[in-house]
């Protein structure tokens, strides 16, 4: 009897498998959208054979982190939409994309990656942007094997900055160590110089996830170097309950609290800070605690709160104005709530779009004006050199910092500005604050070389590659 049950079970599962099989052969029943035919059904998806570049989007629009997901992917999609409508694509190569919902959950992200990596209707995948450290970690091996760049803008695994060991991983603009270092430098500035940090008490309240934990060792090192006392306290995912953590903070009586939050954890932290009477302007939020969605729910408790940003919010940039004119006004905008246009997450999505598209453009210079493989786009990323002049052309002057990537440096930026919430909007309150990249580089290399040894990898010889 049991034989028979096993038989039936397998038959049933195979039936289910065949049911979902056709989707994986490029007939595309994924959530397709393409700028050329906005809002149309998949039947109207343009035949893209040979003329489009595909961006697989592992997005998340439901679950506790939906605010980040919808804003970021909204900005990203709108920018690609803009490139298609205003410029007719990148040198004539149109962009196309499709979404797969991950809910910020690792195994769903892996499933989506496998589903989308093969391209769409013959359009090759340019790069992956999962916007989740957990998913990114799970994809490091896969993306490297499949030769698809894995972009983790403003987050990711810090030692992947070393492109010699991680050829396909790009923690663009700001890796977690640079971020932590810049925040400490800023606190130093506020105290009247980093030498004044000696003996100060700093609490780091971090999200209980690989993303949150990433900076523990570097904070400890900075504390040792600069002589401040660091206490790092974890808030379990999703972070809607923080009473005991703030009780502990009240006992410690720190001078500063660094908030390394994400999603719902941020407004709850601000409210809890207010409850114990901790001043909001001594809470410094990191780059994932810096959006309108993080402070608005906290109400008055958020006023005065300071956070890092790599890109100001607002609509006063040429590229954002162009998106308004070419994409949003004709009703093709991706955001459901038009008020979020120009918000922090949205603008980060736009910055991410600019860098992804720029990589394609740079790579086209070498490989020709055609859809490129992931390997070719990787070359493009490594040769991104966006200076102020180029930023002006892109309409992003003031929106992002100049950035230059290379084979050894997959980060490129490393500077942040600080902004303060005035109750209605973010006001930039500092100039660019640099991280201590010279201090960080040896630590990053030590870690990446350790990884290479564990995995049995030989680091690339960047100089030899440059000569080719």
């Amino acid at each position: 009897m049991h034989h028979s049950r096993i038989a039936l079970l397998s038959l049933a599962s195979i039936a289910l498998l065949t049911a979902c099989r056709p989707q994986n052969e490029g007939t595309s029943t994924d959530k397709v959208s393409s700028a050329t035919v906005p809002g149309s059904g998949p039947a109207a998806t343009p035949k893209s054979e040979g003329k489009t570049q595909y961006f697989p989007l592992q997005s998340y629009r439901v679950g506790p982190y939906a605010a980040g997901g919808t804003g970021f992917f909204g900005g990203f999609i709108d920018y690609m939409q803009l490139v298609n409508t205003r410029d007719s694509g990148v040198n004539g190569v149109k962009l196309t994309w499709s979404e797969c919902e991950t809910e910020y959950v690792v195994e769903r992200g892996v499933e989506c990656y496998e589903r989308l990596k093969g391209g769409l209707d013959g359009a090759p995948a340019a790069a992956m942007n999962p916007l989740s450290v957990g998913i990114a970690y799970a994809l490091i091996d896969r993306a490297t094997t499949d030769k698809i760049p894995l972009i983790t803008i403003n987050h990711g695994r810090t030692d992947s900055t070393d492109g010699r060991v991680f050829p396909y991983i790009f923690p663009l603009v700001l890796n977690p160590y640079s971020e932590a270092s810049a925040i400490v430098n800023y606190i130093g500035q506020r105290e009247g110089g980093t030498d004044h940090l000696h003996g100060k008490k700093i609490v780091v309240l971090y999200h209980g996830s690989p993303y949150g934990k990433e900076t523990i060792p570097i904070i400890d090192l900075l504390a040792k170097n600069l002589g401040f006392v660091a206490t790092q306290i974890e808030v379990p995912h999703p972070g809607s309950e923080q009473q005991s953590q703030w009780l502990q903070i009240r006992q410690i009586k720190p001078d500063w609290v660094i908030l390394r939050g994400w999603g719902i954890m941020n407004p709850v932290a601000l409210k809890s800070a207010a409850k114990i009477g901790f001043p909001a302007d001594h809470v410094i939020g990191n780059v994932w605690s810096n959006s309108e969605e993080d402070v608005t729910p906290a109400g008055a408790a958020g006023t005065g709160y300071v956070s890092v940003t790599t890109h100001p919010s607002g609509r006063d940039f040429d590229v954002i104005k162009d998106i308004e004119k070419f994409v949003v006004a004709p009703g093709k905008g991706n955001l459901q709530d038009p008020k979020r246009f120009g918000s922090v997450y949205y603008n980060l999505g736009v910055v991410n779009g600019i860098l992804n598209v720029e990589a394609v453009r740079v790579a086209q210079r070498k490989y020709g004006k055609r859809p490129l493989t992931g390997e070719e786009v990787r070359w493009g990323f490594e040769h991104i050199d966006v200076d102020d002049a180029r930023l002006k052309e892109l309409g992003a002057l003031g929106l992002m910092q100049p950035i230059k990537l290379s084979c050894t440096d997959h980060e490129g930026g490393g500077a942040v500005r600080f902004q303060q919430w005035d109750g209605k909007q973010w006001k930039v309150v500092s100039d660019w604050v640099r991280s201590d990249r010279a201090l960080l580089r040896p630590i990053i290399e030590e870690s990446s070389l350790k990884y290479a040894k564990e995995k049995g990898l030989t680091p690339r010889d960047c100089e030899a590659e440059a000569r080719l």
Partner: protein
Amino acid sequence: MSTDVSAWSQSEDVKMTRKTALSIAATVLVAALALALPRLVTDYVLSAILVPFLALALAAIGQNLVTGYAGQLSVGSAAFMSVGAFAAYDLHLHVPSIPLLVSFAFGGFIAAVTGALFGLPSLRIRGFYLVASTLAAQFFIEWLFTKVGWFSGNSASGVIMAPPLVVAGLDFSSPGGHYWLSLLVVVPLAILGRNLVQGRVGRAWMAVRDMEIAAAIVGVPTRRAKLLAFAIGSFYCGVAGALWAFAYLGTVEPHGFDLDRSFQILFIAILGGLGSVVGPFLGAAFVVLFPIALDNVAGGALGSVVDPGLLENVEKIIFGSLVILFLVKQPAGLARLAAIAWTRLCRVALRE
């Protein structure tokens, strides 16, 4: 009179033989399909659907041994999975030359010890009280792996990476390799589990489940049976955790094995059918494959018209409704449904 009996038994014999032949044919067919699958389906199906399906089915078998056969309610399966994954990883980290399957077995063994330890309260308490104490395992183990960096090789983010997937000199790192490796681990363990529940141990478990006092009176060593159920069930979960971490994701963090995962495994066991070794496979097929299939189909039909977030929520509603419908229509689970279907099939096939 006597001729009647012999005639009856003769025809019954023929029927049994035919039925056995039918079973064997079906088994051969399934085995052939399992072996041919890597040629039939894409890498996506292999590495993103079949591997997690096999790993979760194995974990649900473990859950089923504890809950379905021995009748002990437990919600700590994901914790035991994480013990298996981390133990296998740590063994590999400190003894790099160890064969992969040995480290999997070691992971299972440590999980078994942990399981027996957290099964101790079952000697005194039962039902919902036992649920509460296994819940403690869930929270304690997750906390332990998060808090003590040693378990994750002191990696900054608490994420552990997979050792090279090599067994006896064969490289299993391709998508097909992941599938073969999972099959290589899951099928023998499933067969072993089936034999186990049909033997003395299984009968002791079922006796404890059906009426513990009666079992004790007729001489079943109930305490031993219960602890053994926790140990063996956790062994299965531990091996499944190692598979999940290394053959599927390639990396894992403690929070990957949170309470949600424990519930997922419990639901797989319940939906598939408690007290069945085949049930977990059916349950896992439903829980793993169905949402993905639904997402593919819905995305294709409505993806560019409807907001993706809304679509995702609708899919969740459909899945939830189906779960309720299934449990109302067939509380004994998919395994019973399949058994009924099989009986009907036999009846049709054996009709003269």
